[in-house]
């Protein structure tokens, strides 16, 4: 597989994300397996009603960290291409917060690589979300 840096597509945007765009980016005649993860805004978190979320990012570093994860996933799982798109700003219930798309010759590394990307994103990428409930708001994960 080509190891060119052009085979990852990183986006941090305040506009709606496109699954079709990510699919088209990773598709390739040599790949038989595409795996996607789409993270959406849930109406309930830890038993509490959620009205909407606000995403904030330290954008230049977030994009760098997203790129590192995409490169690591391609190397580690022998993926062909990785697209990693993340929203910022105000998101409503059902909106898409993140899309991970990966392509691979076979399906097993596609699943593993896709899960690796979203797991790493949640650990390292400087993006924060504030959850709004009917009775107030708070930044998620911040306090014990």
């Amino acid at each position, binding site marked *: 597989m080509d190891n060119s840096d052009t085979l990852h597509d990183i986006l941090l945007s305040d506009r709606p994300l496109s699954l079709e765009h990510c699919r088209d980016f990773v598709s390739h005649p040599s790949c038989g397996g595409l795996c996607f993860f789409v*993270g959406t805004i849930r109406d309930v978190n830890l038993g509490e009603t959620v009205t909407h979320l606000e*995403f*904030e*990012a*330290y954008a*230049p*570093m*977030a994009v*760098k960290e997203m790129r590192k994860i995409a490169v690591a996933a391609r190397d580690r799982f022998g993926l062909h291409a990785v697209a990693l798109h*993340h929203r910022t700003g105000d998101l409503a219930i059902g909106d898409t*917060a*993140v899309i991970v798309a990966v392509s691979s010759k076979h399906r097993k590394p596609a699943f593993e690589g896709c899960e690796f990307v*979203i797991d790493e*994103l*949640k*650990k*390292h*990428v*400087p*993006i*924060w*979300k*504030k959850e709004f409930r009917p009775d107030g708001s708070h*930044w*998620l*994960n*911040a*306090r*014990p």
Partner: protein
Amino acid sequence: MVELAYATMRIQCFGVAREIAGGSSITLDQVEGATVADLRQRLVATYPAFGELVSFAIARNEEYARDEEQIMAGDELVIIPPVAGG
């Protein structure tokens, strides 16, 4: 006193750090030459609420900084509270 003014550094704040700091940045003097560990200690001393977070990291020039790294003039410093992307 001009030198002291030059020595102040701005530390950017996002998410809960912005709420704790009461704004999008904190300005501290005598940060140049200090380690990242020193900076973290000073932040907790000045804003005890930082000590109540699950954790917080310092980013230096758009990379996670290790505790022993020394801060230099011109560094871009950012407080990274627990991330919650996805």
